[in-house]
């Protein structure tokens, strides 16, 4: 079921463009934020709303790195390992996250709470090493900061 809030968001997004299909990627991302991933139902609904074939929606999903067809962790750790962060120890930060969470790149913890990804530059170069957990930025990371964050998120459930 597409929620009432999401339906309204879809209406609003489509109204921004002279061509409905322009709203596909924003619709997919907002749907994913609510549901946790892009479901078959979402693809069908977006295709119907913007008047394209479902395969055209799937083409976009295959292209954009933030969109996924399967659920990921409730807290998705996205560690930047690009140049500015790498120079300040990002590889060690990624290793530390991997060890603490017990998962590797693009893996999900057994309880479904955490997932881990090595990602490209997040635009946090002056605060490197940096990561995003979902949409939240964490910068000037140290192993101790990561330990504290994981403990806090584990406590939150």
């Amino acid at each position, binding site marked *: 079921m597409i929620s009432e809030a999401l339906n309204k968001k879809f209406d609003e997004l489509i109204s921004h463009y002279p061509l409905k299909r322009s709203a596909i*990627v924003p619709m997919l991302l907002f749907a994913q934020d609510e549901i946790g991933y892009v479901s078959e139902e979402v693809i069908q609904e977006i295709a119907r709303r913007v008047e394209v074939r479902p395969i055209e929606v799937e083409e*976009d999903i295959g292209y954009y790195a933030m969109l996924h067809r399967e659920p990921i962790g409730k807290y998705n750790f996205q560690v930047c390992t690009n140049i500015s962060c790498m*120079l300040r120890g990002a590889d060690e930060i990624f290793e530390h996250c991997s060890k603490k969470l017990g998962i590797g790149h693009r893996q999900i913890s057994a309880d479904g709470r955490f997932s881990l990804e090595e990602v*490209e*530059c997040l635009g946090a170069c*002056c605060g490197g090493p*940096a990561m995003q957990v979902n949409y939240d930025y964490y*910068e000037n990371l140290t192993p101790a900061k990561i330990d504290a964050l994981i403990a806090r998120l584990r406590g939150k459930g």
Partner: protein
Amino acid sequence: MPDYQNPMGNSPLEVKVISRRIGIPNSTSLDVYLQNDGYKGLQKALSMKPDDVCTEVKNSGLRGRGGAGFNTGMKWSFVPKQSPKPKFVVCNADESEPGTCKDRPLIEYDPHQLIEGIVIAGWAIQAHQGYIYIRGEYRYLMEILDHALAEARARGYLGKNILGSGFDFELHTHTGAGAYECGEETALLNSLEGLRGYPRVKPPFPAVVGLYGGPTVINNVETLSNVPHIVLNGADWYAKLGTPKNGGTRLFCLSGQINKPGVYELPMGFPLRRMIDEVGGGLPGGRKLKAVIPGGSSCPVLAADEVDVPMDFDSLAKIGSMLGSGGVVIIDDQTCMVKVARCIARFYANESCGWCIPCREGTNWMRGLLERFHGGGAVPEDPDELLDIALNMLGKTLCPLGDAAAMPTISLVKKFRNEFEEHLKLGYCPYEKKAVSVA
């Protein structure tokens, strides 16, 4: 709860134009913006002829801050006056060039400055609709922008009959969803039309055939943020802040192995060596400078003996590099340059959209060679092989991503060939045992 600080640095050497409101409490609110000269540029622009606004911006010497460095007013002037199809202004807020983090604070702390610049651009080219294409990872910035847009709309700075002028302009944000390629302007247009972000063949250029086939101006966040100041204070004032043909100031993002990393607003043409030593406070722990990436990871790397250069578009082009997007990455003498090359190659291989074969194959080939180099399995032909692949990518792709992968690789192999040879001789990385972390 996120955990990060305002990235803006603080140096007495700064000249603050577009960053001058950052740090004022509630700087995102419309009222605070209005108390600090907000929307005065728009008011003035609407009293001028659109062509005169174009000319003013052209004469200011403002050049594209996204990386290409094309004269902004000139770009606007290519838009045809009469067009059967609607015209558009698109703001490129897809900031993703590694080493670049300047558009983020501009939006976070001064969203109205950007909105004002976009509306002025709309007036100058007589467009009535605009979009801010913002990378998906910058969701919180999109929320800040959406709030500012609603405020501006409610108070008559956006929408119908702006400030009683009879001019209508509507503006919306549009989120991407993770694709470096979409920072390239024609890929961005495809993405905005709901397609995969593949580049388009140029010509026709977007100024003539752009979004939905209509004439379209695409400018970076920093570029558009400068526009209200130019209109308000004049082209001469702006031009004199910089060097000839390189008007104004520039946000430089100092990152990597530097004591005071941060985003600094400095006059165009500011000497790179002083930027490192005086603005950034030098390198940590008495380490020595080995190299600098002057404008994001797409730029050819400068060796330590090349940093006596003014930071403007023409001076860097003269020594074979680029000012790019303002991402100045400092690399110290304990860093393995083969590892730097591998990091850069991994990025472009990952982000190549696959549309052009030289880029799709070349980036992956370079990545493979650099993985084996750093891992100790290289053969003596590999440095020349890397150069050969890179040279066969240059200029052979629709968009600059292929060049962006080739150029830094060529510079790294040529300028630091001794390190590649050392890996070959030893069969392992001589730096690997040493800690790289300075955090």
